[in-house]
Structure formats: C-alpha cells, structure tokens
C-alpha cells in the first residue's frame, strides 16, 4: 500500500507575491498589450493620453475599448493559469501556488480572486486586507483560496 504523502505548504511573504506579480505583468505586457502597441502608427512623442484623445477625438471609443480588452485578457491570464496549473508564470518562478480552502480549485474561484488585478488601485486596496497578518488579500478570502509556498 502506497502512502500518499501530503504536500507541505507554508505561508508566503507579501514581497515574494509582489515580485511574482511584477513578473506576471511583464508577461502580460508582451502577450496582451504588445499587439495593440503595434497598431499605434502615430508616434506620440509627448506620451500623453490626453493629447492623443484631443488630437484624435474619434478614437476615444477605440481607446476605451482597447482598455477594456486589455483588462479582461489580463485577468484571464491569471485565472487560466491558476485554474489549469495552480500557478501563474510569476508564481512558478518563485515556487508559490494557489490552493482552494474548500475542495478542488474551481475556475470561478480563480476568476474571483484575480478580478481586482485589472486595476493597480483596486489591487492596492485589496492588498490592504493583508495588514491583519493572515497573508491573504480580501479577494483571496472571498474566493476561499490561499497562496502558499511549495
């Protein structure tokens, strides 16, 4: 009879999760954002979104639509990786993964826990919950998931 060894998990520090997140941002920039950058033939030397909209008012809809698509695909990146592999590329690099606190990890849980990642500001507020010392973001708690080291 084979004994199934339980995987041992340990709590992960905020900084490790942060660096893993930054690595994921680099990947998202290459995979999701770059195709849109290639379309911007008009180089905006001023690098000012306000100038871009002002000089091309008919493009406002396109710009907003682009923002929404990038946000959806960014969240999809994390949700898909965590659902299929329990970890995004950044988490893989730093040896951390996502587990469900109730049974097996569902896609809805992965989607819920990553929903704030389309906005840095929302994510910041989400992370403030970690001050209580349990190592969980608010949406980690909501989705009943936890990030652990392997």
């Amino acid at each position, binding site marked *: 009879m084979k004994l199934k060894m339980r995987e041992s998990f340990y709590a992960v520090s905020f900084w490790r999760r942060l660096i893993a997140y930054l690595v994921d941002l680099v*990947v998202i920039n290459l*995979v*999701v*954002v*770059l*195709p*849109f950058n*290639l*379309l*911007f*033939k*008009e*180089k*905006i*030397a*001023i690098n*000012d979104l*306000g*100038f871009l909209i*002002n*000089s*091309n008012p*008919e*493009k406002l809809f*396109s*710009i907003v*639509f*682009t923002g929404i*698509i*990038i946000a959806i*695909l960014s969240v*999809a*990146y994390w949700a*898909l*990786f965590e659902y*299929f*592999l329990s970890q995004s*590329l950044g988490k893989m690099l730093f040896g951390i993964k996502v587990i469900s606190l109730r049974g097996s990890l569902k896609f809805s849980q992965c989607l819920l826990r990553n929903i704030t990642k389309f906005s840095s500001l929302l994510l910041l507020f989400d992370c403030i919950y970690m001050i209580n010392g349990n190592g969980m973001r608010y949406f980690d708690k909501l989705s009943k998931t936890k990030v652990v080291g392997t």
Partner: protein
Amino acid sequence: MTKKILIAVLILIGLFVVSYASSKLVNISDNRDKIAVIPITGVITIDGGGIGFESQGASSTDIVQYIQEANKNSNVKGILLEINSPGGSAVASKEIADAVKNSKKPVVSWIREVGASGAYWISSSSKLIVADPLSITGSIGVTGSYLEFSDLFEKYGVTYERLVSGKYKDTGSPYKELNDDEKRLLQDKINQIHEVFVDQVAGNRKLNRNEVEKLATGEFYLGKEAYDLGLVDYLGGKDLALNLTKQLAGIKEAELIRYEKKRGIFDIVGGLTAKNFYYMGKGIGSEIKTSSYEIPVRLE
C-alpha cells in the same frame, strides 16, 4: 512537467491570438487624410510661461514638436497654423519659423485677431498667409525696452552698489541709468536682430529687401493694409485657410486634428506647488537679485 509547459504555452498563445484579433477589430489608426491644426496663441517663448492659473503663451518647444509630429504622421497632408499672438522672444519665434520652413508638408498661416511681430515672422515662413481684413499684423521690429528705477530709488535713499568685473556686465540693470556707451551697445544688438528679421521676411515673402525695410518701422497693419502691401496673401477666415491648405496638399477632403496640450487641474496645481517650493528653498531675496539683469529683447 511537459504537460505543464504545454498548457502554459497554449494559454499564452491563446491570449496573444485573442489580443491580436481584438487589436485588428479596433480601428485605432485609420488612413483618412488629415490637416493638422496647430494653434499659436499668446506670447511666444521657449517654454510658454504661465504659472498656476495664468494663461500660458505659446511654447516654441511644443510647437516645433507638433510640426515635427505632423510631418512624421503619414496621414497628415497639410498643416494649418492658427495664429493669435502679438509675438514674443526672438529665439522662440525663429525656432518656430525655421521648423515651418523645414516642414515637408505645406503650411498655411491663418491670422485671427493678432499675428504681429514674432508671430508675423512665423507666418511669413509659411506657404500662404490668410488674415481677416481687420486682423492686426506686421509690426516688423524689435523692442528691448524696460523700466528703469534709479531715480525712484534715489528718491528713497536707496543706492546701487556697482561691483562688476566687465564694464558691460550690468548693462540693462533696472537699478541704474544707461550711459551712452551702453545704450549704443544695446541698440546695436537690437539693430542686428532687426536686420535678421527684415532679411527673413523679405526672403520668405519674396519681397524687395528695401521695400520691407521701409515697412519695418514697428508699425502694425490691419489685414487689408497688409494685403495691399504684399504682407499677406488672402483676406478671409478659417474656411478659406482650410481650403487653401487642402489645395496645397492636393486633397479634397480632410479631417482636422488639433495639436495642442491642455493643462489639467493637476498640471496647474503642480505648477503652483513646484514654484512655491522652489522659492522657499531659494529665498525670495535671491530671486529678486537674479532676475534683475535680464534684458527683455522681444519681437512684440
């Protein structure tokens, strides 16, 4: 492990494909012909000036950049300068005039209320000038006038302690009277700038230099007078200016795109805050000292 890598690669490819397909759907860049409208409003300086809620003038740094951007944009076929400026610094005006001359796309100047002095210099560099019959233009000349307070200070017992290492170092100081030698020096500089201004206008407008010299008394001309003198090409407004730009560009229809920066509330507040912190650090007294020897040579 292989399965893991395969899944990761599939997810990445899937996301890239969806992203690329979405970017094709989004019509961010269209190929319609465009005319770039670049406003030149207010006093022309290198940085545009304007602190806090003061209205900003025209920044030659920005305007030259806009002209260059319009030239790089393959959809922009022509440039319309919308001018409402009394002029400004010689260097800033020349920078813009040179950028206009070097533009590969045709440039038309449309003078609205005022397009005088340095602003006229800029207009003269363009292919065509359109002005309203009542626009104020011309004023081909240079001024370096400033207020001089020596008598006022003497009245209140304030003296000027002169400590310089070169005899002309404090020429133009508002705290002392100009002597004849200094006056001659400053006038000579102003005359040199004036000569350049006249040469440029004569060359740009293909007028006889002596004729331009006669007009270059600093007098401003109404649009209709300037038209009779050959200083402007057409009398009219925006529609005429636009039609002429399209004609020069060889296009029938064009979309207008406006090249200008709008100052938001954070720019205004940031500018106020930055200025205040700068003066706190530097000391109001040293600021008065360092600003006293600027000779404001302007084309206004």
